[in-house]
């Protein structure tokens, strides 16, 4: 039971690790790393959903009779692009924050806001 569904267990583990990092970490870059792990776990989830037992990769091969579902791969390709765009925007925001505040620690950020 546990071993059969090991990829789903990995999804849950990765998701929780990512979520934990986002909540607990005060460093803005590390928060983003957590966010990325969180998103990646969903990618694995989708790919697992699309797997057909005994099916090969969804590429046309004359001798193959059973293929995995290619739709989830396509969906997740879109989601990966969205994730990259989000990450690029988030990192550029962090660069601007660093320039404006001189720090990327959440705690120090809030202290500097209170000072002025």
């Amino acid at each position, binding site marked *: 039971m546990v071993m059969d569904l090991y990829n789903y267990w990995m999804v849950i583990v990765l998701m929780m690790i990512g979520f934990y990092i986002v909540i607990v970490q005060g460093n803005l870059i590390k928060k983003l790393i957590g966010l990325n792990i969180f998103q990646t776990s969903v990618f694995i989830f989708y790919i697992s959903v699309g797997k057909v037992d005994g099916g090969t990769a969804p590429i046309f091969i004359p001798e193959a009779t059973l293929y995995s579902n290619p739709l989830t791969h396509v969906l997740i390709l879109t*989601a990966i692009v969205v994730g990259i765009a989000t990450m690029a925007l988030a990192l550029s925001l962090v660069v601007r924050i660093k320039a404006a505040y001189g720090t990327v620690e959440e705690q120090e950020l809030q202290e500097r806001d209170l000072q002025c």
Partner: protein
Amino acid sequence: MLNHLAILQVIVPLLAAPISLLLNKARLAWLFACVAAVATFIISALLLYQVQQTGTITYDLGGWEAPWGIQYRIDLLAAYVLLVVSTIAMLVLFAAHTSISVEVPGDRQTLLYVLYLLCLAGLLGIVATGDIFNVFVFLEISSLASYALIAYGRDRRALWAAYQYLVVGTIGATFFLIGIGFLYSLTGTLNMADLAVRIPALGASKTLYTAFAFIVVGICLKLALFPLHLWLPNAYAYAPSIVTAFLAATATKGCRLSVDSPRLFGVWHSVHYFRAATAEHFSRSRFGGGFCRFPGCHSTAQYQASFCLFQCRSDRLHDYRHGYRHNTGAAGDIAASV
């Protein structure tokens, strides 16, 4: 031409965005964005007219038929929401030039109009599409544009607000994505009309409830429903006033609520009554809910737009109040639909 209105509604602002980037002169970009916004407004008015004449419009992208390809589906409610969103976007954009030239440094003004159009395209896309994964994609297009728009604020706190919004928004979107994944694994379809037929036939299961839990929490994070609203006051207070006027009136309220909730909560509704659920029941609940919600949504959205335009120096307190008013409205709407 008239057959393709449903897709033109989204394509016009989407293509106008890179073109206004190429123009590279703030005033020119603004004029061009205005032209694009007027065009979107005319298209949405025509769409509403068509829907009233002939009933729900469906448009298969690339000629792929409904459950397989992506379908755009514009019913009466969607047509009204498209009209509201494009009207607000157009009016706010007319007022934008004076305000933007004061608040934003000259070399970055063009980019602001580009982001504005992208955000508009995303919002219209959410309303027009009938495919649940497409909703996610458009949600992210509009969200990414609005994160960047908020970061345009003069105050450095705008950056921090945009960052917080980005983290919360991405978590919300990812939750929504997980929910879609569960629904897809249960039903094998992404088309919303098809989902509404297949879900009641499934009966209640843990997977289904998990899927809806993820979708509801994800959407509520995005539309800042109490108690998931903490990102909102900062984001709106420090963004340029035009951006706040636009986003407050459309992004969180008018659009996401009245689009995502009738469709998704409509599906949810049908789950709740799955034993008695028939197609007729479903359509009645969805349209009934949609219509009694609509006038309220419309007037508050308009009111907020005008409010923000005239109160250019909106302080944080005001935005908190705004946030709470927004939340009472949202809570009421969702209560009405459930």
